[in-house]
């Protein structure tokens, strides 16, 4: 009887090892190890200790351990749980920071995921975030309304802004056949420059300053904070969660999403089945742009509050990896978005406390994606025998 039990346990363990659950974990661990090497290289103490590695190997290894361990301790405390904090609220604050960063990244990731699944390679997240933020920002700054109208209106206008800019790409593709990759790349530059210009005109620029920055969004148009003034996590987080569910519903349960996927997989068959390609292209890009615009609103009405040139951050590009890492599946995108949010949040603490260069996070981030995307490589590194057939994506 007991043998039966152990063998069952063994089987479970085997399936965990061979299965796919372990791959992301190992991918992250491997990337952190490589990141650790870079951390060590960059650290002057380690460099000094390395000089004496033969005379004092112990010192070298303890310095190494302290440096790398310290860095990742800081990453953990900066992104998940700060056990050194003085009270419980502060302990959980890093997690809220992570989720705050994850909000726009995930939303943009969803936007791109929808377009990828519909066969359109939208690289225009940056421009669409900017449009969403500009539109929502303008309403948030200049229109005076009570909270319960003002915030929804600003959000809706932002979403419309993003949708408009996205739909424009779809329209160009539908009418002229213009390649959406080129058009979205160019539109990113154009949107950035347009914002830069508007931030110098009275339309957006704050009075009394010569800098390219807008007035603050009024309180009535802000996403309310979730945990009081000291935390930046706001209601946009729940909007994001709702968007995840919406995207899942749209793509898997609605007839619109069905058409989107149909043109993504086989536009010719879709056309024969009576689906209007041009219209669907416009619709895909509009929905995609709308979600990126929503990301823009969580920026401007949530964390940013002032419109500046940098409002879109690197989310437009990060979102490409997030969308693909999440296999364009809404839940996967959410997971990837939180991962990226965590790395971005933790990076600051690593830098502030351990003088770890911020760019290491970029390196770790990209390696995680590469490893997760190539399970056979991870298996090869750890000499895991191949289990269930895994689809490369």
């Amino acid at each position, binding site marked *: 009887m007991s043998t039966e039990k152990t063998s069952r346990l063994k089987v479970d363990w085997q399936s965990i090892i061979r299965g796919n659950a372990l791959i992301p974990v190992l991918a992250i661990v491997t990337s952190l190890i490589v990141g650790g090497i870079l951390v060590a290289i960059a650290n002057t103490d380690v460099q000094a200790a390395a000089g004496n590695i033969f005379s004092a190997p112990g010192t070298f290894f303890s310095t190494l351990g302290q440096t790398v361990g310290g860095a990742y301790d800081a990453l953990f405390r900066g992104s998940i749980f700060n056990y050194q904090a003085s009270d419980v609220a502060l302990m959980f604050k890093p997690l809220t920071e992570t989720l705050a960063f994850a909000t726009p990244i995930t939303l943009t990731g969803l936007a791109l995921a929808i377009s990828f699944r519909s066969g359109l390679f939208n690289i225009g997240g940056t421009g669409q975030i900017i449009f969403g933020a500009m539109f929502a920002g303008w309403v948030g700054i200049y229109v005076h309304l009570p909270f319960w109208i003002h915030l929804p209106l600003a959000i809706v206008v932002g979403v419309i802004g993003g949708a408009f800019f996205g739909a424009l790409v779809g329209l160009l593709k539908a009418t002229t056949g213009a390649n959406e990759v080129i058009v979205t790349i160019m539109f990113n530059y154009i949107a950035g420059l347009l914002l830069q210009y508007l931030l110098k005109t009275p339309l957006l620029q704050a009075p009394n300053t010569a800098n390219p920055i807008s007035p603050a969004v009024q309180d009535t148009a802000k996403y309310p904070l979730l945990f009081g003034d000291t935390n930046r996590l706001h209601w946009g987080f729940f909007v994001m969660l709702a968007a995840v569910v919406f995207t899942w519903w749209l793509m898997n349960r609605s007839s619109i999403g069905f058409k989107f*996927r149909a043109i993504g997989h086989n536009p010719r068959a879709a056309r024969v089945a009576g689906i209007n390609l041009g219209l669907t292209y416009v619709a895909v890009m509009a929905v995609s742009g709308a979600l990126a615009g929503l990301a823009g609103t969580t920026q401007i009405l949530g964390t940013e509050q002032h419109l500046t040139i940098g409002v879109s951050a690197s989310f437009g590009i990060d979102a490409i990896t997030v969308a693909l890492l999440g296999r364009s599946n809404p839940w996967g995108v959410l997971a990837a978005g939180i991962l990226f949010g965590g790395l971005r949040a933790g990076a600051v603490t690593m830098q502030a406390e351990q003088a770890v260069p911020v760019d290491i996070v970029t390196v770790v981030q990209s390696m995680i994606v590469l490893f997760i995307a190539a399970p056979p490589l991870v298996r090869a590194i750890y000499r895991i025998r191949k289990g269930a057939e895994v689809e490369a994506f």
Partner: protein
Amino acid sequence: MRLELKGITKRFGSLVANDSVNLVAEPGQIHCLLGENGAGKSTLMNVLYGLYQADAGEILIDGRVVKFSGPGDAMAAGIGMVHQHFMLIPVFTVAENVILGHEPTKALGFLNMDEARKRVREISDRFGFDVDPDAIVGELPVGVQQRVEIIKALIGDAQVLVFDEPTAVLTPQETDELMAIMKQLRDAGKAIVFITHKLREVKEVADKITVIRLGKVVGEAKPTSTQAELASMMVGRAVDLDVNKTPAKPADVKFSVKNLEVFNHLGQKVVDDVSFDIHAGEILVFAGVQGNGQTELTEAILGLHTRVHGSIVLDGHELIGQSVKHRLDWGLGFVPEDRTLDGLVADFSIAENLMLDRSDRKPFAKGLLLQLKYLAEFAAEKVKQFDIRTQGINQRAGALSGGNQQKVVLARELSRELRILVASQPTRGLDVGSIEFVHEQIVATRDQGLPVMIVATELDEATQLGDRIAVMYRGKIVGIVPADTERARLGQMMAGVVA
């Protein structure tokens, strides 16, 4: 050169595509390989050609065991293959396609295209192929593309030639020409393996016949066996090779095309002043060599072309100027010529493909919400009704065999409220069993009192299935004649001789 396959077994996952298959190809002999769709014929040939590695068994050439780790080895050993799906690069010229892999070069790896052209012409002339080495392959009719494939197979001086369903895409004339070429090659001492579903061809050229079913050799047949014998051996049951239908009872004209002109994207007029009527309860078959405007005619009826003049009236309703969606909703049933490209979304499940054209309509959707439960029931019913051989309604459509893919398309189109059925080459590439089924469905549709329009390149199919036959040549209708018109006369009409 004598080629022997011994005990070849090939598995795809749990599926055994070939199960200890033995086969011999003798020089100076045409060996026909018969079998249903998915029987494992192509798989066996791919093992022979080094594209797949067998899980068990060996290949012998003139009694010596050989190992092919890739097609390069097979070619070097003197094996040439004409693949079921063309292995041609559409944007390359004929000469470029033919020399690919063993290119004649000048110094520094520069291509010697003169030499390449010369080689193409040599073979082309030897067998009377009439192929221009500088033509772009993608712009050639499929029949000519087929010849390019053959030249490719011959260029390495191959002694064993494998033809995997070469006639599936050919017109009757082209088929006859190909048969002649195969005989010529046999007489030149080559060993030929010929795969086809068309029993008439088997009987015409075969020296030896092997039948496989579900991956196993079920036996050999003599060239003298009747078509019915061969068919039942293939399918494992008796098959009715003739189309069973009662005489048509044509009623009122339900579908009427007047002075239709269609221009393609290059601005060429591909359908030229075409007018015809179809009555309710009648099958009108469009015969003719492929590329004479039939495809474009059906596409224009569906609404895929933008530059169309004239009138298409279905049940009193003008279709010109309407969207595809509108026409489908009005009751146009459409089976496209190329089911993998136009008929199905390969990555969608069978169920999803069954609602492709009605995903936003009741009962498949309520508002925007898809009714997946209903879809599941609907799909299960259609799978049963149309005898779609599948592991389940959620299987990828792309994983189905060709016959079953065609059944999915038919099931989808026939389960709508129809006013007409338009089907382009509905049995192309299908085995006899599937053909029988598809024909039954088409006749049943007619017998419900619908007009039916079929495009067929097989004369047999045209005469058996049609109540009347329209022949197209260079975009025009040469004539519309009764179905019992002589083959010879139809053949003349297809060559443009006005009735």
